């Protein structure tokens, strides 16, 4: 992975740089920021997160399993009381609900990890400890022939530090 990293002290400068880089279509851009900012989200215009699919599927599986286990156990060892139904959906709704929340929440976490590619066990090219502290990093993955242009652009937009990485 080759590219150029621009290190910005100011948010608005980073936003301007990203706009310019997108206009030039040099390659995929990754932005590092100490906190999520609407401005960055807006300028990057990334699509919606796919985490909801994991949440939905996990929740549905959970509620199905919760009801199923309670009904199956009731039928497996029937305790007939006063001629009432062996599988009673009203109390089993509690089991269904709790298992839905449990599996749905854990699936959401799985969705977060899979979509964000966590955990990361290797060094990430372009990451700098200062990006968790207060600065913004703009990493553009580009061809070597475009690297000089990207460097110039990032400097022109006020990057406090620009470097090539691979």
């Amino acid at each position, binding site marked *: 992975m080759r590219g150029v990293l621009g290190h910005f002290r100011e948010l608005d400068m980073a936003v301007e740089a990203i706009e310019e880089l997108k206009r030039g279509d040099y390659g995929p851009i990754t932005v590092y920021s100490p906190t999520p900012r609407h401005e960055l989200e807006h300028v990057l215009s990334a699509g919606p997160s796919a985490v909801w699919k994991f949440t939905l599927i996990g929740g549905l599986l959970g509620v199905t399993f919760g009801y199923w286990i309670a009904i199956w156990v009731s039928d497996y060892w029937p305790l007939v009381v006063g001629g009432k139904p062996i599988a009673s959906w009203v109390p089993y709704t509690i089991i269904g*609900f709790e298992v839905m929340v449990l599996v749905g929440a854990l699936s959401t976490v799985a969705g977060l990890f899979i979509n964000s*590619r966590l955990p990361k*066990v290797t060094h990430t090219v372009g990451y700098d400890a200062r990006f968790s502290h207060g600065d913004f990093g703009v990493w553009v993955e580009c061809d070597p022939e475009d690297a000089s242009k990207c460097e110039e652009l990032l400097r022109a937009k006020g990057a406090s530090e620009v470097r090539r990485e691979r």
Partner: protein
Amino acid sequence: MAAAAKPVDEARDLEVLHRPNIASADVQLPAVRDYEQVDNEISATLSPTGAWYIGLFTAATFLLIGIAAWMYQIYSGLGVAGYNPPVMWGVYIITFVFWIGIGHAGTLISAILYLFRAGFRTTIYRCAEAMTVFAVLTAGLFPILHLGRPWKFFWLIPYPSWRYIWPNFKSPLVWDVFAILTYLTVSTTFLYIGLIPDIAVLRDREKNPVRRRIYGVLSLGWRNSDREWRHFARAYLFLAAFSTPLVLSVHSVVSFDFAMGLPPGWHTTIFAPYFVAGAIFSGLGMVFTIIIPVRKWFRLQHYVTLNHLDAAAKLALFTSLVVGCAYMVEWFIAWYSGLQVEQDYFWNRVFGQYWWASAILYTCNMVLPLSLFSQRLRRNTTWLFILSIFINIGMWFERFVIVIPSLSHEFEPWQWSGYRVTWVDMAILAGSFGWFSMWFLLFIKQFPVIAISEVKEIVKPRLRKPHDHGIDTAGQHLAFERETPGEHE
């Protein structure tokens, strides 16, 4: 732009007792200048102090007292715990409900107020969330302590434990197992997920290689990239959405332990909302008990401002009124039902054998919180702290009044008896506070007590050209304003 920043000492002077009413949805931090200040000041809370060691030692001492009493109980049998037929639920069940209730305010603050976009939660939710996890962890011990043979606790877990017999899924006790294990898992997950970006901050600041490595593993290699933040925000929202109904369901399920039984005072449909409101009220009391010393000891008054405490106090007042209303409905229904048993039981509870417990409960939960109608008192941290202790006591006695008078005054005269708390009960109760405090104190020395990345969302970013470039500053990001209305006199 930078003119909005106030030095820390000056920020403390801003803690005046009276000021115009402030909307709680958008609480700003005028004394916090930039991201670096947030990192430096919040990370500084991780350095151990003398007070912290004293606190940990005290907590460990209480815990050891509790463990010793439990050992004695295992050796001697449950009789030492004050059980006296027909009162076979005592301090352990009361304390179980108490600790479960404490946990609820944490989830309310971290999840429900997140969905409602209540800005004042930002600086207090980490403490409240940690409180939830450790409170549920503490509560989970009590059903086990309540068992005559605690080493058989795994029989509660739903698997075919004995001759292929499964637990009865129609039993409230099995619902409890599902509800509490789910609650513990989801609230722990929620706490940990929220912590990941903050642990990454600690990792990047840490000089000690061993601690840096540990933080590196715990942060899962978090890099603060736009991809990570995008999915993180969505996942956090969904976890909050799951936690919200969970808060309501868990204490409802706990209330079913009582409401599904027939004893007078228990068999009532009001119990689920009554328990949930009481749980949130008691949890808010504990939040004040924790957060007020924490902000003072760590000099975080400019993060957890009086505006935040004011807003949380309003919530406590509201839940106190709901709980008070539930008490009055109980009295009314006892009269309106026309049932002799119900009426006798209530008379005995309020004016008879347990009048003193009822008096403590009504004073602490209904009368004293009315003081929060005064803004002056809502912004007085000393009063809030004292009141929070009363709320904790009152809510423990609420559960005492629910459990004991019902069991000691059932349908037939032979079922009328008394209940005497023993030293073993009290030692184990004290041990539970030691256990809870120990975990909390260990937590606050390893992880930030205030969510660093969420506070940074409130703080304005560094800008070269303010108000330029069409940067979206709508919603809660009012970072470019020179002054925030209401924060300064």
